[in-house]
């Protein structure tokens, strides 16, 4: 039993962290091999295990970096690789191509009905909240009968972009008889989506750790009624509870990383996403509250962390959604 990382994983995490200190430049991250680290050797990478994903995304979360690694590599290249599209997968992993994955549709909430249809190799439908769609060279689109590949700028494809709470952007995607190539059945998604959920949870863990550190520092230095806020027992006990919950989140992320390729993956995905989503919300709310007014302001560094934590819960199914999935997976 071993809960640690390999030497290579630790080195990658360290150099990633150092690079991120100089700013979030996606091409620098790809050059560093962050994309390849997220792909298995069969898929042309040098990592791709749960531990690799955990290491990379916790580091990104700590740094508050907004990158295409989750959508374009873990999800996009992951699906392409599973579909045997190794060239495009490697292009995505190296940053040459950018992939966005279009699953959800308007009017549905999480894992709702898919109405986008394919007829004679052309797709028609609407997709909602598609992360990274504006920058994508390729879109993977879920239709009623499986997954399709669409090239950016294809005829009949239109995007309406907007900013997201986590600092990234997404788009509403409309497809009208858009030429597309079939990749395969929807079960190509299984492992890449689980990996993407792990990535999102590891990212949230990094953010939580950072938010708690920030709060700890604040409580030690900020004084009220003549003494540091952190010396008030009621505040201490709340921080203790918060730290205990973050420890739970940490173990939940480890659990999913350790079971990403095990038979009970679905149960672990549901358990981890449900727990991390709940605790991410708690950390956002409690760290704001423990800061007081300053925690409400955009200019203080907590604000983007809090929004990123809320976004982590809201994506790929929230804590309640995954609680229900866990019940279903446990009964199965």
């Amino acid at each position, binding site marked *: 039993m071993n809960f640690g990382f390999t030497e290579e994983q630790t080195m990658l995490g360290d150099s990633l962290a150092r690079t991120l200190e100089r700013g979030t430049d996606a091409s620098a991250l790809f050059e560093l091999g962050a994309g390849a680290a997220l792909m298995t050797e069969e898929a042309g990478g040098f990592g791709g295990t749960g531990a690799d994903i955990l290491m990379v995304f916790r580091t990104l979360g700590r740094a508050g970096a907004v990158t295409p690694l989750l959508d374009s590599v873990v999800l996009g290249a992951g699906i392409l690789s599973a579909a045997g599209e190794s060239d495009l997968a490697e292009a995505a992993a190296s940053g040459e191509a950018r992939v966005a994955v279009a699953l959800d549709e308007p009017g549905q909430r999480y894992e709702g*009905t898919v109405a986008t249809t394919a007829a004679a190799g052309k797709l028609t439908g609407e997709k909602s909240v598609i992360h990274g769609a504006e920058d994508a060279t390729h879109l993977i689109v879920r239709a009623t009968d499986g997954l399709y590949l669409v090239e950016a700028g294809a005829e009949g494809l239109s995007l309406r972009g907007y900013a997201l709470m986590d600092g990234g952007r997404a788009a509403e995607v409309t497809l009208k008889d858009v030429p597309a190539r079939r990749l395969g059945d929807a079960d190509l998604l299984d492992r890449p989506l689980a990996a993407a959920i792990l990535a999102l949870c590891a990212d949230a863990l990094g953010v939580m750790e950072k938010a708690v550190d920030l709060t700890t520092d604040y409580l030690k230095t900020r004084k*009220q009624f003549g003494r540091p806020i952190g010396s008030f027992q009621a505040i201490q006990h709340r921080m203790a509870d918060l730290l205990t919950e973050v420890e739970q989140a940490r173990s939940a992320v480890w659990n999913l990383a350790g079971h990403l390729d095990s038979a009970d993956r679905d149960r672990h995905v549901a358990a981890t996403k449900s727990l991390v989503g709940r605790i991410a919300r708690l950390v956002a709310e409690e760290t704001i509250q423990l800061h007081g007014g300053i925690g409400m302001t955009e200019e203080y560094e907590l604000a983007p962390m809090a929004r990123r934590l809320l976004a982590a819960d809201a994506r790929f199914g929230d804590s309640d959604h995954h609680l*229900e999935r866990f019940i279903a997976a446990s009964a199965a």
Partner: protein
Amino acid sequence: MDMSFSPEDQAFRAEVRQFLKDRLPQRLSEKVRLFQELTKAEIEEWHAVLNEKGWLAGNWPRDFGGAGWTAIQRHIFEEESALAHAPRILPFGIAMLGPVLQKFGSKEQQDRFLPRILDGQDWWCQGYSEPGSGSDLASVKTTAVRDGDHYVVNGQKTWTTLGQHANWIFCLVRTDPTAKAQEGISFLLVDLTAPGITVRPIVLLDGNPEVNEVFFDDVRVPAENLVGEENKGWTYAKYLLTHERTNIAGVGFATAGLAALKRIARGQMSGGKPLSQNPLFAAQVARVEIDLMAMATTNLRLLAQAAAGQAPGAESSMLKLKGTQIRQAINDLTRRAVGPWALAFPSEALEGANDDLPPGPPEAAGATRAYLNNRKLSIYGGSNEIQRGIIAKSLLGL
């Protein structure tokens, strides 16, 4: 025991409801319903409608141009207004400064300032908090030094809500630096257009510059703008804080928010069914509704006690605590109800541009921002930690 409203109060409710139906512009109520920010002009528009009816200052005596309502009537008005998605009446002039001037101000001050609050000539803001003061309001550092028939004010206020729209600010200033914390403070009215004042908006984490920093650099304030006696300002400030606490429970806002939440949940799908029928979601909504039913009764019980002349004690801290918990729970459920669309975050306030048309149901983007904005509920007006301390100390005597 009779929990129903008196026939008079029921008639009053009907009158309020009819008035809102007739006179509240849908343009405004739609923005409120969708959690959108109102412009200065829109807020002033609604104030003017209410003032024309004589209903702007429900808490003021008729002698001062108010409606002279009972606590129950005020409650009814607030509840109906919230349910109709009426804009909120700005508290700074009406709920905060007005009562202070009426009780402690000079006749001249009353004659000069009160009418201008009602007719909208003055927009007041509050200068209490300072950087670093947090819940310790008595740690006032902004100084006012007497110089002839003026005070010279230096220092900084912060968290000044909507100060960017205001032309006047009421301030706590330190007039005796040698006195103990709660002594040596005075209550001063300051013209925000005076030289030496700088107002800097603070953008909040919802992207909205709702509050401001106000800097005072050798600002000369006529001595006639001192309210009451010098060095007695803490007394007036406490009186104001007590008055601020009417409607502290926010029952009307919570009721309206709950209705909106239920409507949104009926329109969202979850596993092929409306989210409102999802047992886990319905249970969370029901639990907050049950909590709200109980808190609304606590609120009415205290109003009835107040009407019978009993001053509320730590119960109003309980209302603040539970009221903010309930409203924040509703905000949280509303944001979660719109699921992935809560991710959209219109960035115009952050970036000065409005090129984004958010996806999902019309309430979605506003739901996120309302959630983020209302994290303030448990921080301001005496943080919930302060309220817990008050409850423990006054009821337990610990």
